[in-house]
């Protein structure tokens, strides 16, 4: 799923009127991190289909700013299903991506095999691979982090 601009506005309205200091929402291919009191808001990543992140940035309630993620947590590419994770198309082949690789939402970053069915995993985000979180040929669970990506425009 992705959040619409209206969803983000609504979230900002709620947090603005609540005693919460910080809010973090993560869902498939989307993460939103909001901190109050002149802190920063990270809206990460923008799904490819989204026209532009500008409308979100334009919301700017109570002095908060929308910034692309800098150093720090980045975005997680999570396994879409349980199975065996492969980083390359076959033994001896180069990995699809590695630390430092630039990815776009459609970039294949790995394969999860369930009973001989190969499911390619798209990055779902734009950015640079910062960390490889799962080992090749190991069981990965649904939702388990595979990569961490530093978001970029």
């Amino acid at each position, binding site marked *: 799923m992705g959040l619409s601009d209206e969803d983000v506005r609504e979230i900002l309205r709620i947090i603005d009127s609540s005693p919460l200091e910080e809010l973090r929402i993560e869902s498939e291919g989307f993460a939103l991190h909001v901190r109050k009191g002149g802190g920063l808001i990270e809206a990460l990543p923008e799904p490819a289909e989204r026209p532009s992140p500008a409308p979100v940035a334009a919301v700017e309630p109570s002095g908060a700013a929308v910034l692309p993620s800098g150093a720090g947590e980045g975005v997680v590419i999570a396994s879409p*299903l*349980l*199975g065996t994770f492969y980083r390359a198309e076959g033994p001896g082949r180069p990995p699809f991506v590695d630390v430092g690789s630039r990815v776009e939402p459609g970039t294949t970053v790995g394969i999860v095999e*369930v009973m001989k*069915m190969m499911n390619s995993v798209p990055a779902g985000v734009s950015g640079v691979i910062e960390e490889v979180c799962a080992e090749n040929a190991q*069981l990965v*669970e*649904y939702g388990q982090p595979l990569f961490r990506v530093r978001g970029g425009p």
Partner: protein
Amino acid sequence: MTIARVFVANRGEIALRIVRACRELGVEAVLGASEVDMFSPAARAADRVVCIGPGPSAQSYLRADTLVAAALGTGCDAIHPGYGFLSESAPFAARAREHGLVFVGPPPEVIELAGDKLRAREEAVLAGLAVLGGGDASEVGFPLLVKAAGGGGGRGIKLVRDAGELGALLSLARSEAGSAFGDERVYLERFVAAARHIEVQVAADELGSVIALGERDCSVQRRYQKVIEESPAPGLPDATRDALCEAAIAFARRISYRNVGTVEFVLDAASGEFFFLECNCRIQVEHPVTEAVTGVDLVCEQLRIAAGDPLSLAQEAVRVDGHAIECRLTAEDPERGFQPSPGRIARFAVPALPGLRVDTHCEDGTFVAPYYDSLLAKLIAHGRDRAHAITILSAALEGLECDGVRTNRDLLARVLADGEYAAGAVTTTWLEGALPALLEGVAA
């Protein structure tokens, strides 16, 4: 025990029950949990938990390939399917076997045969069991039931009162069966007006021993779904009890049944005759009443049988002690047409009473997800006789605290307090008939 690590492919109270049985036998348990079940009591009790997918069961507990991959990936040598979900899926059992996993249940061929209600009936006849009519409507007579060959468990049943209704209901039943079970075949069964639902617990090992562990009376039903179950069946003559157990064993032998299973019968309360209904290839929800009166741990027995070990007892050693009654506490609102009532349980507590067993996955803060069935807990009372069991269970319901979701607790308490229920031997249509009066009591 040749099994060292079991993959539990289920959720809720039965997942916790299976994990505990594994503990008892010194076997490791790995739980496959959906995203919403990752912090359940069963997940905490298991040696390891893996997330098999999101909440909706079609994307988690019903994914055979994912479950087999998870079992293999976590080094398990067996899969316990529990009840519901894929527990009676022959393709799932076959898939597990293909990959060298022991399926804790009968072999896929047996599951397939028992799942085809028409074939199961034919085998029952060959084993010398009586069935309710057969052939066309003129032979069966009216009123009659139209049942789906691929159905079972109370699903896909239509009551036809006279010949005038037959044509329309038959074609409706066929099309519904086609869409629900992928199998349009239906068959006709004589309708027994005063029917009791009696089932026999059987266990069969790989060495050829087959035993019966007494019967259960599950006549308190609503829309063919069981609400209260007990063992032994009240007021049943010993000769009938023995004949039921013998019939169940004969059927199990005939189809080369393995592991624990249940052979269901309808007993005509007027004549005392009984007829084969179907065979269930899984551990049943109501298995604890049998455990209470026989002292046999049926889930441990399942694991032992699956490991190739002999049954832990012979038929001569089966003793029935006292009386046990189970009621199913569900997150349903009887006053609103039994509408499911998912939500967060703020407080859940059951009094500790001698003779009371509670199988549940609920605790303070449990979220009852909208994806699964509404069973919250099974309360099982074991008393020296039926009246004693009713007393324990009534006290348990009275002391039960379950805040945050609506439940059928008050209705269950009303049933236990009802004079007709207390007198014993109600029929399968009793609850629905008594419901308006019972609900008035609840509302008052």
